[in-house]
Structures are given as structure tokens and as C-alpha cells.
């Protein structure tokens, strides 16, 4: 078992290091193949671990590899745990990564940095595995930062592009802001519980006062907010689409961004003690779901639309987790990983076909040339929209049910409305890309279907997107012991059915509306003249609520200007100048008073006499004072001075 664990964990590392050996050499296909194989090995080991855990029931695999840091009372090992929660995540991670790796062999085929890509991608998988498998917060933080690093490297993969490197840095720095919160959370955990191991810490949490727990919860969640791109730290995710599409699929849809959700689920014992924070998380989740969906409505960048949809779905997950429905959140996480990765990879195919064109308005009618991609993306979108019987239906509806059952009707309402929006923008995208006129011809592009093996690689995702719903029951049974889960049953069957059918109808209507509006032949490439484009709401949404603008104007610019002021004004003109000033005063005094040494003997003699006379008069004054000191004292006391 332990061997399997180590294989699952370190196969990606080996893959990364192996690929890294070839970073400076020209493209070598075998690098991609071997990397994929190693990741696949990891997947197989994970599957075996899953199997053994499911079969053996409650057993979890827990190893302590070695000490990392130990000082004072602090003891942090490299410890790894495979229990039902982590094994679920591991399955998702390894499965999606395997697929993405194989897919990338085709996708990155023409890129000269092919080898480097695999190095980074495998490194990401390793970091993610560390994050997931770690048995303590510090280990989690390693993975946490590691995925951030790999995300930086992969977003900025095409580093000759200014926008890509900018987005990479933005993502890194934004995540760092959140990581500070996380770090503080970890400190709080340590100083209150004396340990960072989940097990030990959770034990102590039960005895702590709610205020402390609230703070811990809040700070850890701040970390989660950054990684999962929750408002207000969300802007990096859309910009992160500058990276290669497989990266978006793996990191910015399926795995890394869900790390925040994972953290909350992992710390469920903490969050279940502080329902207030949970409610806040849920509310924020619901808000983000709606907020992101609204931005996706009008966006004209294929990948950004999908990114916003990811954001929106993350909102769902947080809503579920915040409400205490951890298993639902986890399940949605899993299902979402499948269909969203599929969607992204499909988008990758489209991009390839369209020579990296991203505006769906410039596409249209692609279903004729890219049949398989069309099918995959349609099914993925259906799953995303939550149409029965696809994966999304089971996971997302459960979230709605949970919200309803917990009597958080506002959250429920928001989520329900968002479900409609989701359906609309997903199919707006599908319609614009695959249906209607072949607008791409204006731009002289001749699209083609992706390599066959890429499509084959995507097929597991397709299947899972279709059938993952079946897994809901077994998943629930597997997870319930560890996540203290309970099924959400709406007491009245009527209500339940009304809800289900109502939701389906609502979503279906949204899909139809999207088709009607965007699949027709009259769609033109928008040129900024139509009435709707000039409406305030459109602009507001299109500019992402002006939040990036706000950040740029009111945070980045002032920071830059303040930096300049600190350097040029404060440091150079005040601090340094005062140091030099002191030296200057000393030197200047010397320069000015050296005239005393005029070289004239007469003056020199005068100096001597002057010094002597001054001393003499001082002596006389002092002598007189001493002689008449009694009288002087009397006089002064008379004046009331002494």
C-alpha cells in the first residue's frame, strides 16, 4: 500500500524531472509519451489505492516519510494520508492529468518548448498530489504554493507574449495575497493546537473557543479564496487563460482551482464547528456563482467564457461546502472536473483548428468539420447546464436541494437563477462556435479536426461526463463515514419533483433561447455599433464590473507610484540625504572654520590671547561666584529662583 502511495505521489515528480532534462533540447515526442506514461502509472496506483480503500472499508493509508521541520515544539513531517477524501481528489487529479498529458502531445505538437511544457505540467501534478495527500497543513501549503508556482510557469508558458507573462505574475501575486491569509491561518492553528497535523489539530479544535476557531476558519478560507479565485481575488483566473489550453483544462478548471474547495472539505471538522463562517462561505459562493455567470454572458473570448463558468461552478461548490454539504461539494468538484476539462479540451481543439482564434463570433458552423469536438463540447455543456442524465444534473441539483433543505432560500434562489444563466452562456458558446454561418471563412481559415489520439484521449472524460451521475450513490456511501455526510431529502416528494422538473425546464428554456438567439444565420462579428453593445449593462459586464480597471487604477498604479516616491523621494532625498547631510555638515564646518588658520602670525597670537582672556574672564566670574556664592544664593532665593 505504501509503495502504491509513493508511486502515485512520485511518479509525476520523476516525470517532471525527466522532462526537465530535455528543456533545452529541441522537441522530442518521447518525452511527452514517457511523461504521460508516468502520470498514467500514478493514475493506476491511485486506482488501486481507491480499490483497496473501498474494499477494505474504513482503512486509510497513512505514511510519514521524513521530518521536514522540527524546532521548539513545532514538528512538521512529510506525512501523507490517503483516505476517502484525498483518494477521490487523487483520482480526479491523476485521471484528468493523464488525459491532459496525452492530449498535450498532440496539442503542443508544433511548439518548440514541447519538453519544457511536460516538465511543468508533471511538476504541477506532483504539487497537486502533495497538496491533496498531505496529512498536515504545512504539507498542504507546500502543494498549495507548488501549484501556484507551476501555474505561474504554465500561464506564462509562452513567455514572449507580454499578456501571458503579465497574467502569470498576476496569478502568482494574487495567490500570494491569499496565501498570506492561509499562512496566518496555519500560524493560528499551530499556536492554538500545538500541531499542524490534521488529526491532532481537529482533536483540539473541539476544545477551542468559537472566536479563535472563527479566526482560523476565516484565515484559512482567505487562502482558499485566492486559489479558487473567489471574489475579490478572482480576476487572475480569466487572465490565466493566456496559458496553453491543456493547462487551462487541467489547472484552471479541473484541479488547482478546486484546491480551495478541497481545503474547506478537508477542514470540515473545523468549519462544521463554526456555522457562521460556513454561511459566509456559502453566501460568497452563491454570489460568485451569479457574479461569474453574469460576466460569462457577454464575453467574447471562448476560453474566458469557460473560465467564468468554472468560477461560477466553484461558487456552487463553496455554497455547498459552506452549508455543510461537504460530500456534495466534493462530488460536484469531481463531476465538474470531468466535464469542464472536456469542455476546455474541446475548446483547445477549436483553437487549434482556428489558429488560436478565440472569438466565437468569428467561428460558426464548425460542426461540419469538427464533428467529434462538437459532440463532446455539446455533451460537456449539457452536463454543465445540469441536464438529466449527465453528470452535472446529479451534482448540481444536489447542491440546490441542499440549499433548499437547509432553508437558505436566498442562496437557493441565486443558485437556481445562475443555473439558468449557465445553460444560456454555455449554449451561446456552443451555438456560436458550431452552428450558424461559417463566419470564419471571412478570415481565410481552414479548420480541421484534431488528431485522432487526442480525441481518444478525451473520450474517458466524455464518458464520465455522461455517466458520472451513476456514481453518486456509491460515492455517498463511501464518503459518508469520513465526511459525516447526510443525504438531503426534501420532505415532500411533491416539492422535490416540482423542483427537479422546474429546474430542468428552466434550464432547457435557457438552452433553447441561446440556440434561438445565436445559432441563426444573421450573427455578425460584433463591431461595437449595436445598441446592446452600447448599453450600460453590457459594458459593465463586458468590462468585468470594471474590477480589473479598478485594481489597475487604484491598487497597481498607486503601488507603483508609491514605490517610486519611496525610492526617489524618501530613500534618496530624505534618508540618504540626511546621512550625507551629517557628513556634509561636519565637512562643511571644517571647510568654513579653517579660515581660523589664516597663516598670519599676528592672528595666531590673537587667537591665543583671546582664548586666554576668555578663560581668564570665566575664571574671574567663577571665582567671584564662588566667593559670593552665599550672597548670590540669598539673592536668588529672594527672587524665588532657587
Amino acid at each position, binding site marked *: 500500500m505504501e509503495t502504491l502511495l509513493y508511486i502515485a505521489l512520485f511518479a509525476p515528480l520523476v516525470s517532471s524531472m525527466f522532462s526537465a532534462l530535455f*528543456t*533545452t533540447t529541441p522537441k522530442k515526442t518521447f518525452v511527452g509519451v514517457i511523461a504521460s506514461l508516468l502520470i498514467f502509472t500514478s493514475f493506476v496506483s491511485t486506482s488501486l489505492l481507491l480499490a483497496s480503500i473501498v474494499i477494505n472499508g474504513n482503512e486509510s493509508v497513512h505514511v510519514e516519510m*521524513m*521530518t*521536514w*521541520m*522540527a*524546532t*521548539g*515544539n*513545532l514538528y512538521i513531517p512529510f506525512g501523507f494520508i490517503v483516505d476517502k477524501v484525498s483518494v477521490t481528489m487523487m483520482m480526479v487529479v491523476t485521471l484528468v492529468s493523464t488525459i491532459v498529458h496525452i492530449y498535450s502531445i498532440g496539442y503542443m505538437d508544433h511548439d518548440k518548448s514541447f519538453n519544457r511544457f511536460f516538465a511543468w505540467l508533471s511538476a504541477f501534478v506532483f504539487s497537486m498530489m502533495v497538496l491533496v495527500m498531505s496529512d498536515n497543513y*504545512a504539507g498542504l*501549503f*507546500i502543494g*498549495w*504554493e*507548488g501549484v501556484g*508556482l507551476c501555474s*505561474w510557469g504554465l500561464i*506564462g508558458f509562452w*513567455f*514572449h507574449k*507580454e499578456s501571458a*507573462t*503579465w497574467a*502569470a*505574475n498576476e496569478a*502568482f*501575486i494574487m495567490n*500570494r*495575497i491569499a*496565501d*498570506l491569509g492561509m*499562512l*496566518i491561518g*496555519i*500560524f*493560528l492553528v*499551530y*499556536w492554538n493546537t500545538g500541531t499542524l497535523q490534521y488529526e491532532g489539530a481537529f482533536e483540539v479544535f473541539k476544545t477551542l473557543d468559537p472566536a479563535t476557531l472563527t479566526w482560523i476558519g476565516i484565515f484559512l478560507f482567505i487562502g482558499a479564496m485566492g486559489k479558487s479565485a473567489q471574489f475579490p481575488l478572482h480576476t487572475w483566473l480569466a487572465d490565466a487563460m493566456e496559458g496553453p489550453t491543456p493547462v487551462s483544462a487541467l489547472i484552471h478548471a479541473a484541479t488547482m482551482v478546486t484546491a480551495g474547495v478541497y481545503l474547506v472539505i478537508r477542514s470540515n471538522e473545523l468549519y462544521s464547528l463554526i456555522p457562521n463562517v460556513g454561511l459566509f462561505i456559502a453566501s460568497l459562493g452563491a454570489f460568485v456563482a451569479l457574479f461569474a455567470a453574469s460576466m460569462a454572458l457577454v464575453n467574447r473570448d471562448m476560453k474566458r467564457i469557460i473560465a467564468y463558468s468554472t468560477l461560477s461552478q466553484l461558487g456552487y461548490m463553496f455554497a455547498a461546502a459552506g452549508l455543510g454539504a461537504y460530500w456534495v461539494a466534493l462530488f460536484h468538484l469531481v463531476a465538474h472536473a470531468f466535464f469542464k476539462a472536456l469542455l476546455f479540451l474541446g475548446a483547445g481543439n477549436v483553437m487549434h483548428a482556428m489558429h488560436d482564434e478565440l472569438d466565437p463570433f468569428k467561428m460558426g458552423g464548425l460542426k461540419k468539420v469538427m464533428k467529434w469536438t462538437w459532440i463532446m463540447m455539446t455533451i460537456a455543456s449539457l452536463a454543465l447546464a445540469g441536464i438529466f442524465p449527465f453528470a452535472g444534473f446529479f451534482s448540481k441539483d444536489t447542491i440546490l436541494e441542499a440549499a433548499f433543505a437547509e432553508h437558505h432560500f436566498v442562496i437557493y434562489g441565486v443558485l437556481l437563477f445562475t443555473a439558468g444563466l449557465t445553460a444560456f452562456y454555455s449554449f451561446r458558446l456552443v451555438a456560436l462556435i458550431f452552428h450558424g454561418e461559417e463566419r470564419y471563412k471571412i478570415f481565410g481559415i481552414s479548420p480541421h479536426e484534431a488528431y485522432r489520439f487526442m480525441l481518444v484521449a478525451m473520450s474517458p472524460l466524455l464518458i464520465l461526463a455522461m455517466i458520472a451521475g451513476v456514481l453518486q450513490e456509491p460515492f455517498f456511501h463511501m464518503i459518508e463515514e469520513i465526511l459525516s455526510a447526510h443525504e438531503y431529502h426534501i420532505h415532500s416528494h411533491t416539492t422535490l419533483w416540482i423542483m427537479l422538473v422546474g429546474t430542468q425546464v428552466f434550464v432547457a428554456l435557457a438552452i433553447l433561447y441561446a440556440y434561438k438567439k445565436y445559432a441563426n444565420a444573421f450573427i455578425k462579428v460584433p463591431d461595437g455599433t449595436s445598441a446592446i453593445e452600447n448599453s450600460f449593462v453590457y459594458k459593465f459586464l463586458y468590462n468585468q464590473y470594471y474590477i480589473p480597471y479598478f485594481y489597475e487604477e487604484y491598487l497597481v498604479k498607486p*503601488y*507603483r507610484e*508609491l*514605490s*517610486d516616491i*519611496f*525610492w*526617489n523621494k*524618501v*530613500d534618496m532625498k530624505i*534618508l*540618504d540625504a540626511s*546621512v550625507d547631510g551629517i*557628513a556634509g555638515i561636519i565637512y562643511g564646518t571644517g571647510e568654513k572654520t579653517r579660515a581660523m588658520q589664516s597663516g598670519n602670525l599676528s592672528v595666531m597670537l590673537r587667537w591665543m590671547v583671546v582664548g586666554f582672556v576668555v578663560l581668564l574672564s570665566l575664571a574671574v566670574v567663577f571665582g567671584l561666584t564662588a566667593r559670593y556664592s552665599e550672597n548670590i544664593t540669598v539673592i536668588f532665593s529672594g527672587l524665588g529662583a532657587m
Partner: protein
Amino acid sequence: MLDHILSILIFFPAIAAVFGFMIQKDSIRAYGISVATIEFGLSLWLWFTFDGNVSGMQFMENLPLVPSFGVNYILGVDGISLFIIVLAAFFTMIGIASLTETPNEKNMIITILFLQMTMAGVFAALDAIVFYVFWELSLVPMLYIIGAWGGPLRIYASIKFFLYTFAGSLVMLVGMLFMAYFFYQATGTWSFALLDWYRLILPETLQLWLFAAFFIGFAIKVPMFPFHTWLPYAHGQAPTIGSVILAAILLKMGTYAFIRFSLPLFPDASAAFMVPIAVITIIMIIYTAMIAYAQKDVKQVVAYSSISHMGVIILGTFALNVEGITGSIFLMIAHGVVSGALFLLVGVIYDRRHTKLMSEFGGLAHIMPRYATIFGIMLMASVGMPLTINFVGEFLSLLGFYQQSHILTLLAGTAIIVGAIYMLSAYKKMFFGDVTKEENKNLPDINKRELVALIPLSVIAIWLGIYPKPILEPINNSVEAVVRLMHNKAQSELAKERIPNLVKERASVIKKTVIEEEVH
């Protein structure tokens, strides 16, 4: 031989340097490398024979120097100083090995060997005067290195460096003399021996004054805000090797001295000054990081980043608990490795282009992928990526201080954000984008001589990030002794509250010597 290994470590390079005068110019490099390698071997030997489980001083040497005035040549190492000594020897070795073609190479190498003597001496000295001797003496070779091989403003920079630190340390000297005088008052004998001073418990008001005197000397050396302005000049003008050693080792003298002198001698004052110092360090962290962001010269970025990191080190020191102090010592080593490597890396590009302005570069990752990779590793280490050496130190320092103050740690923690901002933007400016300058198109990638220095540093940066235990453990043991000492000596309520009482009572009970408040 083992009894005198510290003396050998200190004086071997100096004697070798004297003999170096006799060596022909062209062969001096090989001589320098071999001497430095032997020195490094000696330091490694020291490390391996060092008993990590002992918290006290080891390899003590005691030779009367001016016994009637209490000045003795006392040496010793514990976990706190051991690794910095090893690091110093290491940097001397790779510094000489990776030395690029310089005019007057012979003088340079001899100077570096002398510098190595002073560095080893500072960290091994257990007598205040011996410490002071090496402390001051280290200025001279550095002065020469900056002044003779530096950039256009080299003379200004070197004088500033020298006089600023000299002035500060003279105040410190007065503090030391006071300390010795108080010891004389209490016991009737003069002594500058640190271990003797540890036994002395001073009234709090005196502690505050003495702490301030020592503080000025240390703070200028570190350098702490607002005494830091000499550092950008020194780094900006110094040749690569000078910057490397300055950043890696010389700055550590200040932070080391805080732990060696300020904390155990003045526990009450340390506790009392904790918050003001923390505020200064926070200013250092944020303010200098912002300045680093505004820089146009990549070397200045690294220079200011050093100040910012030093802020974290000091913060960890003044956490006054085992975690924080251990972290700060570890961070000293980490910062030595990382900033040393960064300066070497800056030197690599400077050698090729003779400019350090970031606007002159851009897209270097296309042309020099190996260079970009190593720079990237060091960049990530510098911003404190977990599993790199810096993270361990930063994490522990901040963790330690968190026990003292939540808000201040939160503010200091912004180090990880602001650090990322300037480092990434610098990296972006240099390595990303298209190659715009014609001159850059044919730059050779990093060569073997440079790799000799950079590969080991990269390995250390990652190895110690993953497995810091061999270093952390001896440090921890010695730090525990320090904290225990501090707790035992603490008199004020504040200090007793802030300095944790370690339950494990292992050290021998300290003989307390209390002297009266009234001195004169």
C-alpha cells in the same frame, strides 16, 4: 589539532594570504582556490565533528590576551554560529572559483582570503573584544574590494560603507566597555568574555541603554531601516564577488550579533523593545520591497531585497521564542545562499553586457535558457517558495513572531506578497518578452566556471528546503539554551511573559549575579 580547529580556520587563510604575495600573478587563482577549498574542507570537518546534541559551546579555545583588562582570545562555536562559518568558507571558495577575469587578480584573491579570516573570526569569537576586532577588520578588505574594483561611484560607496558601519560599531564598542565595566563593578574583575557576561543580570534601565548602544552598531550592519542607505550603494558599486560576500556573510554579522549579544545579555530590554523593532522590521520589509520594485537596475533589486529579507530575520529574532530564533538563524543561512546566488547571477549577465539595467535586457529566456532556469530557481527561493531554503526560515520566523503579535505578523507577512511583486516583475523584465536588443541576440549561455558556483548553490537551496533537519537540529538545541537563559535572566513581567519558559530544564542552572541600579 581538533582543539585548535577554530584558530586554524581563522588564521589559515590569513597566513595563506601572506604567502600569496610570493606567488606569481598567473598562478594565484589556483592558489586561491586550493586555499579556499582547504578552508572549506576544514569547516566541513568542523561540522562533522560538531556534536549537534550539545547546546553549549564546542571547540572552545581560551588564550589570555590582555588578562589584566579581561580581554582574552576565546573562541567557540555552537549551533548558532557553526553554519554561518561553514557558509562563509563555502562562499569564499565558490567566490574565488567563479571569479571572472579581473585586473589585479592577485590583490583581489589575497583580499578575499583576508576577508575570510575576519568572517570566520567574527562568528567564532566569544570575547567581545575579539569579536569587535574581527568585526571591524572585516570592513577593510571589503572597503578595498568595493573601492578598487567597483563601479563609477565606487569610492563614494566604499567610504560610505566604511564610515557608516565604523561609526555604528564605535557606539557598540562604548556599549561593550560599559558592559565590561558593569561586570567589573559586580565581580571586581574585568572581563569581556561573553560567557561571563551571560551571567550578569543588569537592571532594566541599564539594559535599555546598553541595548540601544549595541543596537546602533548591529542595526547599521544589518542594515535596518533607516540606517540602510549605505547598502544599495555598496552593492550597486561592488564587483560581483564583493556583493556576494557582503550579502551572504557580512550582513549576517549584524543579525548574528543580535542573537549572540542583545538577546541573552538584555532579555528585559529585548522584550521591551520588541514591538518598536518589529515595527521597524515591518517598515523594512514593505518599504524596501517597494523600493526594490521601483528599481531599474537588477542588482539594486537584489540589494533592496536583501534589506527586506533582513527585516524578516530580525523579526524572527525578536520573536524571542525557539521557533522564531531558529527560523531567523536558518533564514540567515538561507538568505546567504539565495542572495549570494542572485548576486552571482547578476554578475553573469553583467560580465556579458556590462550593464545591469533591466531595460537593456528582455527575452533572455530565449537566449540563455540555463541561466533563466537557475535564476528562476533562485527567484523562487527568494520569494520563499516551500521546499526551497528560504521558506523554512521565513515560515519559522513568522510563525515564531505570531506568538507575540498577530497584527504585526500579518503586516510582516506581506513580505511574501511584496517580495513576489518585485522579484517577478524583475524576472519578467529581464527574461520574458521578445529579444528587442540586437546586442542580446548572441549572448552565450552560462558557462562552466559560473556553473561551478551556481549548481551547488541551487542544490543547497533545494536540498535544505526539503531536508533542513541537519542544520535545524543543532540550531534548535543552541537556541533552546539561549531562550532558557533569557527566561531565567528575565526580571520584568513583560519579559517573563514574552520569553517562553521551556519546560525541559536541561542546562545547568545559571549563576545569577545581580548588580545594583546605582552605578556611580
